[in-house]
């Protein structure tokens, strides 16, 4: 599901990047919980680069279907005896690679198109904005199926598909944020001072919409993880030896049936991580824009 972007568009005044004043005495719960969950997730992925309980891709028939909470395999093993914790840890890495990868590429192209639409006249704006509207009305999941089937599945195709769906949303949010910055007096002064358009965009606009970009990135990082899980569940996303939580759910359903605990852990991992990132995004939105009415959870 795509994150709420409407509420982001009104963060754009440049004043909002000043550090949050101690305006609200109550603790920003979203932000704190979001930071905790997200950093836990990042640490686990980082640890997986150096240490894993066992190789998550090598079958170990003797240990197959070990139940959860046994000493050698805390969350048990799957139908081929592969350790669940090891698979979940590598899955965290995939989520970051694909989710953050897709969101980063979308941010890059969204920044270029959004700034171009905001700063380079009515024709450019109309072309880019209508193009973004068209792309937004195309159902991503169906196109991703076709894309994966024609280009072959894998992490790279998945990142490509995600960045294609996400770019128009970034374009729209960055465009409207940049437009309101461009109306500020200090932009006029810079222009009168003889600064060129590119200089003004790089020196004045981008730093002032950084908050919007960070929030948008965080929310689409989460959306990317959800979409990747869906594609991998369908078998057209990430493939082994990479491991994805969506893929683990698919394998659990195909091999041991859905009532096994194997169908619980990867789903739980997705929910916790996506929830963490969404809370972080909402929390950051409040901090980066103290004037914004609180709308999210």
């Amino acid at each position, binding site marked *: *599901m*795509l994150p*709420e972007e*409407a*509420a982001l568009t009104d963060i754009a005044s440049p004043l909002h990047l000043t550090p949050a004043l101690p305006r609200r005495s109550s603790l920003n719960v979203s932000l704190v919980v979001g930071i905790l969950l997200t950093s836990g997730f990042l640490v686990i992925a980082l640890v997986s680069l150096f240490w894993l309980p066992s190789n998550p891709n090598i079958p170990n028939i003797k240990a197959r279907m070990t139940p959860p909470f046994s000493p050698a395999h805390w969350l048990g093993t799957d139908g081929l005896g592969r350790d669940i914790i090891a698979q979940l840890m590598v899955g965290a890495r995939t989520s970051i690679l694909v989710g953050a990868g897709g969101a980063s590429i979308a941010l890059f192209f969204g920044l270029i198109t959004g700034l171009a639409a905001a700063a380079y006249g009515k024709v450019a704006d109309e072309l880019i904005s*209508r*193009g973004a*509207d*068209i792309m*937004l*009305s*195309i*159902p*991503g*999941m*169906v*196109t991703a*199926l*076709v*894309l994966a*089937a*024609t*280009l072959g599945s894998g992490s790279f195709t998945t990142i490509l598909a995600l960045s294609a769906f996400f770019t128009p949303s970034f374009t729209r949010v960055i465009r409207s944020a940049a437009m309101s910055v461009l109306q500020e007096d200090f932009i006029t002064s810079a222009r009168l001072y003889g600064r060129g358009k590119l200089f003004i965009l790089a020196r004045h606009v981008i730093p002032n919409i950084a908050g919007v970009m960070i929030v948008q990135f965080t929310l689409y990082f*989460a959306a990317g993880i*959800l979409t990747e*899980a*869906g594609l991998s*569940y*369908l078998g*057209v996303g990430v493939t082994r030896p990479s491991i994805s939580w*969506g893929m683990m*759910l698919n394998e659990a*359903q195909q091999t041991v*049936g*859905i*009532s096994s605990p194997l*169908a619980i852990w990867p*789903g739980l991992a*997705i*929910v*916790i991580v*996506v*929830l963490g990132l*969404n*809370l972080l995004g909402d929390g950051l939105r409040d901090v980066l824009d103290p004037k914004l*009415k609180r*709308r*999210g*959870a």
Partner: protein
Amino acid sequence: MAIYVLRKLAFFLGAVFVASVAIFLLIRAAGGNVAAILLGKDATAEAINALSHTYGLDRPLPVQYYDWLVKMAQGDLGQSFRTKEMVSELVTERLGVSIPLALSGLLLGILIAIPVGTYAARNVGKLSGAVLALISQIGIAVPVFWAGILLSVLFGVRLGWLPTGGWTDWSQSWVGAIRSLVLPVLSLGLIMAAVLIRYVRSAVLDVMNQDYVRTARAVGMTRTQALLNVGLRNASLPIVTIIGLQVAELIGGTVIIEMVFSLPGLSRMILANVAAREVIVVQSTVMLIIVFVIAVNFLVDLLYGILDPRIRNAT
């Protein structure tokens, strides 16, 4: 109003055109030599060329594209290479699964989200409002296929009330068909609701702070009366737009849910035909779905213009 409709119509046609080019290129350019794949690796070059010629696949791409577009516009979706079945018939068979699933899922989502979102907005700052906001926040993080798996474990495996998957056709038993749709619809609807609740909540919150609601309260309406009489009608505008935008998401959810519950809907047909390189079937079916989504957005735009004169008169 006429100019507004014309602008929206132009956008509709433009979107359909861009989507059709994208789908055509994606499937044709990346799909390799279709005839060679259909014939297998022992096929001679002559056989491949002959087959390409029979299917018209040896013509230049723009000609093939134009041909496909003209036929689509006339209602001819083409036919399968291997089985010679008409795409329109293949699609019609599957719609008996996909349309009830998608529409009931959306309807359930709306029916849950409007009262719950309104309640959450009215109780903002109280415990009940916070709990609802948290539940919706968690619901947004749940992948729709995992919701399907959990519901199917609970109601299918543990309680045994409903089938965990599979399909009984309407013609055999409509009770059976409904029974096989209950869990898929529930999964789709609950996840749609979680997403929609947030929008309903913020739309109602916005409206509650408006002057006209204060005025309504000042002339003696209770909070509930004010909300029902002037509030909900104004809040309905953004909600209608969001529902229109969610249709693309709904299609995505339907695709996955059909796989979770092994329902013989459109998505399974698309996947099978992608694997078999039935390019015409895939191309036409995917295009049909996209035209549907764009058309819904077009209708939502029109509705929005009718509901709100400010929109239709804006330049």
